[in-house]
């Protein structure tokens, strides 16, 4: 079984006459350790797909198995539990402004019983910040970091709890070319060493080369999978 398996997924926003199908009979698989980039025109349903896989939205129709958990009909509590096993990276870093980089990263570990006390959490957070090249900024608040640095902290936060899957939606959109490239390469390297699959939505053609596979979406369907 693959970490992500979608079959016959349909999704629509709105009710009644306002109902707008966004995903139509969509199939997609992400294999263990695979890095998949999702591209396609604006409005083609990439973000919607990602929120379904990330258990941020309830499924409407079809099958969607993520890390062995079937999400069709899964209650909120199951979805909250699954989210703890997924690393999310958003377009905006969304770090808590009143916490330092290390404290932000350590927040991820509060949900994991293996890290019983704050000292352990902060040590693990600092190790992770070291791996994203942010060791010197562990005690800095996000407001004093550049955009690229903040996104590195967000990457550290997504990865520190050893997730089984990484989901990212345009993580480079708010960054300049070079920092965007750096962040994506960082994600790839970290994923490679721990064998975590990545599903990453992007409009940025310059980063397509980091992918094992590029999936192209159009109007709610996968049109090209290479």
């Amino acid at each position: 079984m693959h970490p992500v398996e979608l079959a016959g997924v349909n999704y629509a926003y709105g009710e009644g006459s306002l109902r707008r199908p966004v995903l139509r009979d969509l199939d997609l698989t992400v294999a263990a350790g695979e890095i998949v980039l999702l591209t396609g025109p604006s409005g083609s349903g990439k973000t919607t797909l990602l929120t379904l896989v990330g258990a941020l939205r309830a499924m409407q129709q079809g099958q969607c198995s993520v890390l062995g958990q079937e999400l069709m009909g899964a209650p909120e509590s199951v979805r909250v539990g699954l989210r703890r096993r997924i690393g999310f990276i958003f377009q905006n870093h969304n770090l808590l402004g009143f916490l330092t980089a290390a404290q932000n990263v350590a927040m991820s570990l509060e949900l994991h019983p293996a890290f019983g006390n704050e000292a352990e959490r902060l040590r693990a957070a600092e190790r992770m910040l070291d791996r994203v090249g942010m060791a010197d900024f562990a005690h800095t608040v996000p407001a004093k970091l550049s955009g690229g640095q903040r996104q590195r902290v967000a990457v550290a936060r997504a990865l520190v709890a050893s997730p089984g899957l990484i989901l990212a939606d345009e993580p480079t959109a708010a960054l300049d070319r070079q920092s965007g490239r750096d962040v994506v390469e960082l994600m790839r390297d970290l994923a490679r060493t721990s064998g975590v699959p990545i599903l990453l939505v992007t409009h940025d053609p310059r980063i397509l080369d980091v992918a094992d596979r590029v999936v192209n979406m159009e109007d709610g369907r996968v049109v090209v999978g290479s």
Partner: protein
Amino acid sequence: MTALLPFRLAWRQLRAERARLLSAIAGVMFACVLVFMQLGFRSALFDSATALPQAMRGELFLIHPLTTALFRPESFPRVRAYQTLAIPEVAVAVPIYMTQSIWRNPVNGSHRAIQLIGFDTEAGAVSFPGLAALIPALKRPDTIAFDWKSRPEFGPVPALLAAKGPIVVQIGNREVEIVGTVALGASFGADGNAVMSETNFRRIAKDRRVSNIDLVALRLREGADPIAVQRALTALLPADVRVVTHDELVAWERNYWETATPIGFIFAFGSAMGLIVGMVIVYQILFADVASHIAEYATLKAMGFGAAYLRLVVMGAAAILAGLGFVPGVLASAGLYNVVAKATLLPLRMEADRGVLVLALIFGMCAVAGLLAMRKLRDADPADMF
């Protein structure tokens, strides 16, 4: 994951916005001081209103059933006092006269109503502090003891006494000599008090019928059961008097002020206003904290934090504000009590049970604000994050 983590997050979030935190604390403190002052005044009123019955000695008392409060008693026949002696357990029956008369300020001549209390000072039925030493002097004609805790509008009597010795003042149309002071206290029913012997009371309050009295204090023999005697007296005496214990006399007086006047309601209303204003301030602060962190909260939800964790963050912030506002609030109130007590001579002081009550009210106030602000958390939708 321990329950303390959301509280810590709440504290870190509050701490990051100093100005917001300080205004929230000031809001809670304001509510706290307001409630303390209202409750303090309320209790001071009831304390001072019952100072007179509190000072009465005696196991049982006779009052007219229609007497609502001691500052305006209904009188009843003096003979009721003597009738009680038919019960062997009654050792002494002391009639007490009360009326209001007009006092002329010895310094500027202004007039003010004063409560006159007359009784056999040697019978030991009343125990105002300072009275014992004045008993011989009060036997002389036209002498009174002045309540030094009366409102200052009566004139600087204690100072005059200290400077000149016994002074002569006018009560009603009569010149009387003040031989000393006792401590009783101004109440909402009487601005000031003068204590005198029964004979002097009759001289000063000429329009009063001597055969009518306002209160009787009964001293029982050693070992007598007040409740049994109360029952026997009730059976013995006609319906124009009611036999009450000392506690019942105090409760009777207190009940008048609590229920028959809007005073109790006014203070409850004032307290409620303080709590509502404080609640709105705390709500706005908590709401602003949630609203300005919606994206971050939604991210926490996406990371797998449950709704309960975020609710605890909001409630934790509410609890922290309650605690941080209460501490300066209780200190400021204690200080204000001192200032106001000096200015008004009302018995205002900080009391532990009132402190506990206000602490509970303040936490309740912040909890309501937190519950209201929590609704904003629904806007933190992790599906909107990408």
